[in-house]
């Protein structure tokens, strides 16, 4: 108990953390499988990262160094709010540098900088069920997962190609984990999907409102669904970053006026600033 805040380290009480850790262990043991857990009310609203916060609160220790991003950036309002929350209730060190963080909580992105062994990436997940648009009944989707009955998801991809010539999913693009479970990668752009595959870091997913936890252990196979003759294609804006010039990173579009003017900048602010610093140093 910290006298300064009146709350336990990491906000959650130790019994709750233990319950969440048990769910995490099960999730790691069955990659891609959604484990129900007793999600608690948090002092932030549902849908704003309560699942990710509970996961982070359960795995964080005093020696950890935490980075929080939203849309790839450390300075977005929600990321600032969550980082402050942990600085307040856990008193841990925070950082904006991907390479220096031991835990990275994220909403909607995987950092551009390659992750390494020992790092934990915690995803905030709004809808853990990858099949919910095709089958809203949870009892039925549980049965489909149990039986690995995923034909319906392929029907959706088939329909997209028949209608549009392409799969029309641009984010939250479903993946098959370890050849067994269909999984929602959370609403990251499809561009980020390949980064999940055989990633050296531990990837944990928390959905607070839907009360589910799932995980991708290090070096696990993660494949985006596709057809042999319509292979998965990650999409990014066809431009370079206006600040660092990167043509590899995922870009945000920034509207500069109401006459159609716009520029593109890296969504990953740490990556972009690192590149700019190196360019300045080289000059």
């Amino acid at each position, binding site marked *: 108990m910290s006298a300064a805040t009146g709350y336990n380290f990491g906000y959650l009480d130790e019994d709750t953390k233990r319950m969440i850790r048990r769910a995490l262990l099960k999730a790691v043991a069955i990659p891609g499988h959604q484990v129900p857990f007793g999600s608690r009310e948090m002092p932030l609203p549902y849908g704003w990262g309560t699942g990710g916060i509970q996961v982070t609160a359960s795995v964080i220790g005093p020696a950890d160094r935490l980075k929080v991003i939203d849309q790839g950036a450390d300075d977005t309002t929600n990321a600032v709010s969550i980082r402050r929350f942990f600085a307040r209730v856990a008193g841990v060190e925070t950082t904006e540098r991907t390479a220096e963080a031991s835990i990275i909580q994220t909403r909607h992105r995987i950092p551009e900088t390659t992750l390494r062994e020992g790092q934990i990436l915690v995803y905030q997940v709004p809808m853990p069920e990858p099949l919910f648009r095709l089958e809203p009944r949870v009892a039925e989707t549980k049965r489909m997962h149990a039986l690995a009955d995923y034909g319906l998801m392929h029907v959706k991809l088939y329909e997209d190609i028949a209608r549009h010539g392409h799969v029309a999913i641009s984010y939250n693009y479903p993946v098959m984990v370890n050849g067994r479970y269909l999984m929602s990668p959370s609403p990251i752009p499809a561009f980020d999907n390949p980064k999940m595959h055989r990633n050296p870091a531990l990837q944990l997913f928390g959905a607070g409102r839907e009360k589910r936890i799932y995980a991708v252990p290090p070096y696990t196979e993660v494949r985006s669904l596709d057809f042999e003759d319509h292979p998965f294609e990650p999409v990014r804006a066809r431009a370079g970053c206006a600040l660092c010039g990167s043509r590899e990173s995922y870009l945000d579009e920034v*509207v500069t006026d109401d006459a159609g003017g716009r520029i593109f900048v890296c969504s990953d602010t740490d990556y972009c600033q690192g590149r700019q610093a190196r360019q300045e140093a080289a000059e």
Partner: protein
Amino acid sequence: MAYVAVKGGERAIEAAHAWLARERRGDPGLPALTVGQIEQQLGLAVDRVMAEGACHDRGLAALAIKQARGDLIEAAFLLRAYRTTLPRFAASLPLDTGAMRIRRRISATYKDLPGGQVLGPTFDYTHRLLDFALAAEDEAPPPPPEASAEAERMPRVTGILAQEGLMQGEVAGEAEPPDLTREPLAFPAERPLRLQSLARGDEGFLLALGYSTQRGYGNAHPFVGEIRMGEVTVEIVPPELGFAIEIGEITVTECQMVNQFAGSKTEPPQFTRGYGLTFGHAERKAMAMALVDRALRARELGEEATAPAESEEFVLYHCDNVEATGFVEHLKLPHYVDFQSELEKIRQLRATALREAAE
């Protein structure tokens, strides 16, 4: 016997209302709430009551809240019952929310855009920790907010998308929009009628319906293109003048939801819009309304309409909380006569069934 029952009933009702008045006032040792305090310090409750009561008058809404002991549906009911007695002098011209004096304006689709993100007075990003300092009796007034820079022009996000042809245009109808306050709902309901109904619909009901579209009961892929809140000018054209005059200024919240793909092989994919507008600062309501508005467009956009939020009749017939509370609560009224006939019928059916079983 019957005579006595009626008389007793009258006395009982009078006593109940006296009791209600005392309960409403609470401990006489505490100062009574003033309507001004409610209007100023429970401003969001006032906004909600104005929206669902379909009457823009902060003072009356605050009075209704006081009289209703904080029961906001009861307060909306009081306000509706009052507004229906008012003569109608004119209908306003369409509000120009593009010319809003903006206090808050955010977009979830662009990180930055002309005019910028203006957070304004918001609960967002506050940590929901009870602030025990507020429990103190004499709360010091917080410092005034930093003066905002001279307002930049703030083009609408939907307009930016429309320039590229990415946003489906909204065609202004020639016809005079129907008036829900004067005519009954009629189906099929066109969008102006639907929006009117949603604008005064129950916040909780629309919230649940909007939420259901996000959870798979409906075909929603929404992004908040823009939420803006601030003051707009209300204008009318008095017939004797023949030109528009300003009659005042009201606060409104507008939400434009950008929704993924419609389109087919013949029509290129486009974004489509869900629209929400409410009196006062009522962001949750405006967002839920925009989700439900888009869901109700399923049929016109050639989508399969199977979810509750996509059913016009289901949504519009049930979103009015004054109607809904009336009918649900009417179950408290005496139903002695009907129930007596039910009693007789079930005794008869049971007697027959028991006799047959015995045979």
